[in-house]
């Protein structure tokens, strides 16, 4: 029984962290049809932002939850203004340019921080489940994911920006006719997506540590979660995260973490083949 609870928490954690690292990418892809290959590096920058802020005496919670999203969000807006906006409608070119950005950011952080892993110790202690122990931080990550997803849902559903975003998503010209400025919406959307990535990277930094090439570990997982989920930002991300997170964790439990990841990637390839439009292309069509 205890083992089962532990396993359930592990699966929940796998799903939550997958959703967390993917949702920024999902927003950018879902609303702008931009595939951001530098997404992993946005997560990495979030991690560094949190670590640098903490080392300057700022509380770890403020560093993770406020400093990191703001820093990466601003970087995102700069990237949108200087690179992405010239490439709208050219999906392949956007992928290539953001891949270039990814290499650039890896190179830059290597030059600044060196090619070593920096860590911050996870706050919160551990909790006991019968004979087993697990980190309380695990539960915090699950909680943060729920809060983030809930906030995005509320934002899309009830705010003016959410309404505009949904309008722009449907038809850029219509939004313009309503007196909205699509370039500004795109810049803000990209900024929000980047900020969420920064938040995710910071929240996961105590778990995995941070190093310049950590983005590679994130990018494929985030990608296939978004692509596997399909066009609907929230239901897509959540359903794909549930599917892949569960597969990953169970395969990890049965074999090793590495083959857990291989199982996840393999499952994703098959899913894309079976449902090229993603899960929400077939199911939950009219969801957010």
């Amino acid at each position, binding site marked *: 029984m205890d083992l089962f609870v532990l396993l359930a928490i592990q699966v929940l954690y796998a799903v939550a962290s997958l959703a967390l690292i993917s949702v920024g990418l999902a927003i950018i892809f879902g609303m702008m049809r931009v595939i951001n290959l530098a997404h992993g590096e946005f997560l990495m920058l979030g991690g560094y932002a949190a670590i640098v802020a903490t080392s300057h005496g700022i509380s770890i919670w403020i560093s993770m939850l406020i400093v990191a999203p703001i820093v990466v969000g601003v970087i995102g807006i700069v990237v949108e203004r200087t690179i992405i906006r*010239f490439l709208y409608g050219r999906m392949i070119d956007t992928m*290539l340019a953001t891949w270039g950005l990814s290499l650039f950011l890896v190179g830059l952080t290597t030059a600044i921080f060196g090619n070593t892993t920096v860590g911050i110790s996870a706050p919160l202690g551990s909790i006991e489940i019968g004979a087993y122990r697990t980190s309380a931080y695990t539960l915090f990550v699950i909680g943060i994911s729920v809060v983030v997803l809930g906030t995005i849902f509320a934002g899309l559903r009830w705010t003016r920006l959410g309404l505009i975003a949904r309008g722009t998503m449907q038809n850029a010209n219509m939004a313009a006719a309503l007196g909205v400025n699509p370039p500004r919406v795109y810049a803000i959307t990209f900024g929000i997506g980047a900020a969420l990535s920064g938040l995710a990277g910071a929240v996961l930094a105590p778990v995995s540590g941070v190093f310049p090439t950590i983005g590679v570990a994130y990018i494929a997982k985030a990608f296939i979660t978004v692509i596997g989920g399909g066009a609907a930002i929230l239901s897509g991300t959540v359903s794909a995260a549930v599917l892949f997170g569960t597969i990953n964790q169970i395969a990890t439990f049965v074999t090793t973490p590495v083959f857990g990841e291989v199982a996840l990637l393999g499952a994703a390839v098959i899913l894309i083949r079976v449902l090229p439009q993603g899960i929400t292309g077939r199911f939950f069509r009219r969801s957010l």
Partner: protein
Amino acid sequence: MSGRNLNLLGLVLVGVVGLIFMFFTPHFADLDTVLELTVYMIMAILALSLALVWGYGGILCFGQSAFFGLGAYTYAIAMFNMGESTLPVVLAVILPAAFAALLGYFMFYGRISDVYLGVITLTVTLILFNSVNSTAGPEFHIGAARLGGFNGIPGIPPLNWPFNKGAAVDLEGMFYLSTGSLLLTYFGLRLLLASQFGRIIVGIRENERRAELLGYDPRAYKLATFTIGGALAGFAGCLFANWGAFVSPTIFGLAQSAQIIIWVIVGGRGTLIGPVIGCIGIQWLSAALGANQPSGGSDLWSKIFANAPLILGVILIAFVLLVPRGLVPTAADVAAFVLRGRRRREQRGLEPQQAE
């Protein structure tokens, strides 16, 4: 001069320059340079594989390094088990080609769109990287070959003349072999592209639906193109494993895949010579940047300029934004523009009344 003559002139030029380079370099350059040039030639074959698949076939493969790595690993593993290189070389071509065929069948017959194709090839590359990376333990071996995980496989035995185990190919021989292979690959692909097959794959790239409505099955043609690309990349991998006598999982990595894409985009899609030039140029640049490192001190600027990923990233962004067609097609456009301008001026000089 007509387009056809210009084309022929280009071919002859490439052949002559290539042969001169091949036969004279070892006589004038020191061994280190020859060794360095050899790897450029090998990588240029890899660049040509993507030039075919992406530049002509229109298939954006983010994982060309998967076939390259597979070729290298196949050669290494087969060599440790067989000791004689004839069959390992054949396997190092066939296995990646078969893998490409399998993956291609899965993707093209599943009608997966361009963008998703990129994602799948990228994911498959990462699967290979992750899997091979985790095989460090002694329990992971194929026959006599230990896979070595992230440590890679060192001490791979060198190539020998076909069916003659005693006659190993030396470093100079590797240079001749690599350069010769590159030239053969280049001219082979030119022939292929001038054939009916070549015209059809370009037609499919231009307008897949139209090609289909004329009675060509795009899936079959794309699959064939992708498989040929896989075979070429595998062959390059085989040469590469030979060159350094070492393979490690980084050759499956994203950085390697990114490099191949950068070579092609810098040189120009839809040409063969472009990606070769792009490949050699970028590698030379990377080597030059890397060479700065020991003397570069520790201040930030020297770190930045000795940093290949950073510079490559900037190059990729700059080309996508500013020179999206690549160097060779852009240069051809400029040349054509200048020529046409001159011809127009001449005509105007001859017939001033007709100027409009």
